[in-house]
């Protein structure tokens, strides 16, 4: 038994089924912990008062929106390069949750923007590129839904995903490259974060919870896709008959 065993949809289907509850429960527990930090441990911000507490969902959601896209592009690239079935299924399973987090990032951003800048929306480089990310997700999902031929759909959707990857560094560096209204990043890989340690901890816990949630729902979704595509195999027939 080696790692490649799980590249087979049948084995992965069973493994995913066992893992889902673990990811779901740990996502729930981390969310509770993260919310506790966000509302009860993190102090009031001296500039943004209590409104800043929105960042505990806004920032992790924005991170997730970009990261899920990169993971989706990774699976798409693997699928295109090696023609592995499971990779395309993973890419398809990730997209809706990526779109969800992009929407949450934009929505909470608007609710933070209104009290802080006086407007729900600005055509600022950061906001615009994040909106383009939402359109990319929706476009890719629509493309997949529109092409009946599974193999052609997989390839077309993944190709569009790869073209859209260019947008991710644009979002990330937009606050540096352009003079944006959106504030610069407070957390960098190169220098110490410019915020209280407890706030940073809250953001990281929420981001981690977001990851576990994403893994859980993606696995649920990929299992459905596997069952659908493998319905003519003996193992899938056995599962369908058992239910």
């Amino acid at each position, binding site marked *: 038994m080696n790692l490649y065993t799980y590249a087979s949809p049948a084995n992965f289907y069973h493994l995913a089924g066992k893992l889902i509850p673990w990811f779901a429960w740990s996502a729930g527990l981390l969310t509770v912990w993260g919310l506790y930090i966000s509302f009860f441990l993190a102090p009031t911000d001296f500039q943004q008062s209590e409104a800043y507490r929105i960042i505990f969902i806004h920032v992790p959601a924005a991170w997730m929106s970009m990261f899920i896209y990169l993971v989706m592009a990774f699976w798409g690239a693997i699928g295109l390069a090696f023609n592995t079935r499971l990779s395309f299924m993973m890419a398809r399973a990730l997209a809706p949750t990526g779109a969800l987090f992009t929407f949450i990032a934009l929505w*909470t951003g608007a609710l933070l923007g209104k009290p802080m800048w006086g407007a729900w929306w600005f055509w600022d480089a950061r906001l615009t590129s994040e909106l383009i990310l939402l359109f990319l997700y929706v476009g890719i999902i629509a493309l997949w839904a529109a092409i009946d031929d599974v193999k052609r759909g997989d390839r077309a959707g993944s190709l569009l995903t790869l073209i859209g990857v260019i947008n991710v560094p644009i979002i990330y560096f937009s606050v540096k490259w352009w003079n944006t209204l959106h504030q610069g990043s407070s957390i960098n890989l190169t220098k110490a974060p410019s915020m209280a340690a407890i706030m940073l901890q809250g953001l990281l816990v929420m981001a981690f919870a977001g990851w576990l949630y994403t893994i859980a729902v993606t696995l649920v979704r990929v299992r459905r896709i596997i069952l659908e595509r493998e319905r003519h195999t003996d193992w899938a027939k056995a599962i369908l008959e058992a239910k």
Partner: protein
Amino acid sequence: MEWASWSEFWHMAGYGLYVWGSYAVTLAAILIEVILLKRAGTDTRRRLKRMQQWEEQ
């Protein structure tokens, strides 16, 4: 603890609408995703099973 009372907590120094509007919509969006996922799961199983019975005839 940051809050003197629950009403202060819900008030969020006057930003209650923005803070709770953010958290409520996020919660709703996640709940919708989970519900749709559950429904899609049972729908797919039902449909595949029907197709299977059909093909066996």
